[in-house]
């Protein structure tokens, strides 16, 4: 099942794990991503997970449910998950196909995803009234 090199990489950035997907993933690679990430959430005591799916030009129902499960499992292990980099046509196809995306947290890209997690962790500084901008 784990034959061949992984088509994704998991990087650690402070308290966060960043999973970067390199190319289209098949179902077994998707499950491998889920397992590796959940494993590393515990090992690195991560508080947040960002999954960058920008290279995916298709996100099917299996991928959606895997991502949903992954987010739920990570939450149970103490980390919050944000999916970033969904392409416009992919986003539209996902809702067209009626996929259940309600519980998935999303952000535009990696940078926004990091802001999202930072805001969620420190609610006091989440809306700086003077700056008006998250920088």
């Amino acid at each position, binding site marked *: 099942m784990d034959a061949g090199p992984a088509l994704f990489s998991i990087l650690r950035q402070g308290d966060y794990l960043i999973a970067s997907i390199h190319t289209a993933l098949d179902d077994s690679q998707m499950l491998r991503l889920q397992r590796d990430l959940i494993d590393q959430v515990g090992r690195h005591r991560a508080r947040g997970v960002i999954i960058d799916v920008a290279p995916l030009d298709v996100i099917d129902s299996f991928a959606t449910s895997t991502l949903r499960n992954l987010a739920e499992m990570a939450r149970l292990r103490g980390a919050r998950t944000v999916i970033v980099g969904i392409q*416009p046509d992919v986003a539209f196809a996902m809702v067209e196909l009626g996929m259940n*995306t309600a519980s998935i947290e999303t952000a*535009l890209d990696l940078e926004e995803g990091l802001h999202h997690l930072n805001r969620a962790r420190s609610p006091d500084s989440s809306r700086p009234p003077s700056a008006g901008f998250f920088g």
Partner: protein
Amino acid sequence: MTQDSPSAEKLSADFPTIDRADEEQLLPQLVSHLREHRTRLRQAWAGRIDGAHLLQAMTPQEMAAETTSVYDNYVEVLETGSVEALQHYARDLSERIIPRGVETHEVVGIVLLLRDVLARSLFEKYQGDFGLLNRVLDAYEPAANRIANTVAVSFVEERERVIRQQQDAIRELSTPVLPVRERLLILPIIGVLDSERARQLTEQLLIAIRTHRAQVVVVDITGAPDVDEAVANHLVRTVDASRLMGASVIITGVSPEIAQTLVTIGVDLNKMNTIGDLQGGLEAAERMLGYTVTRSEEKGG
């Protein structure tokens, strides 16, 4: 009265044994007759047009100019048998008169009137010889019908071209995605949303979200007269898709009718963040983005 008359009589005398070459003489004869009586026939025609209350959008001067050119074109087609020049002229004419509200039945009407006026004059000329008249009409009618056809088709084609052009223009104009502040877009929806437009609109919105790195989008539907079930569901999907791109959507300007429609058809409204009007929507969006707008004391007083 014309040079043709003796030969016409000769033709009619030879009627039973008439051959192809003589038959072909009829058309030039006919054409020269129509050229000769051009002014009288054109005026008779203009009188008939006036009597039928057609082309009332045009001034008498324009009518005179247009009827003259239509008449000349008409005779020319009878002569040459080629409708290309007429097609060109008809398209030009249509281009000029369509914006003035001239209808298809008027254009077809005037061409048919001209056909009748000319046919009458042929009856008059050849009334003494029924056989010849018959053959003249045999030559005249197919050409006249082809002309009527050509003009009508050119007019309708031109009209369709104009309609297509306007549809494209409306489509281009009607879905602007406007950045109002950093990370804040507004999308005013004006006019009827069909599913094709709704799809295009979503696509443009999603691309704009990425281009402008938008976090909040205010969709204002004040200008949308009505929403049916398909479009309402499409709106919900647009909200979902925008969320997947990391942007929240605020819907504003829901009219009482649309609100009633949405509730009646049972669209899932939980995901819809709606605020009364565009102003309120923009204020809410600014709050979400952390902007505070204050009015300066000196100018505000």
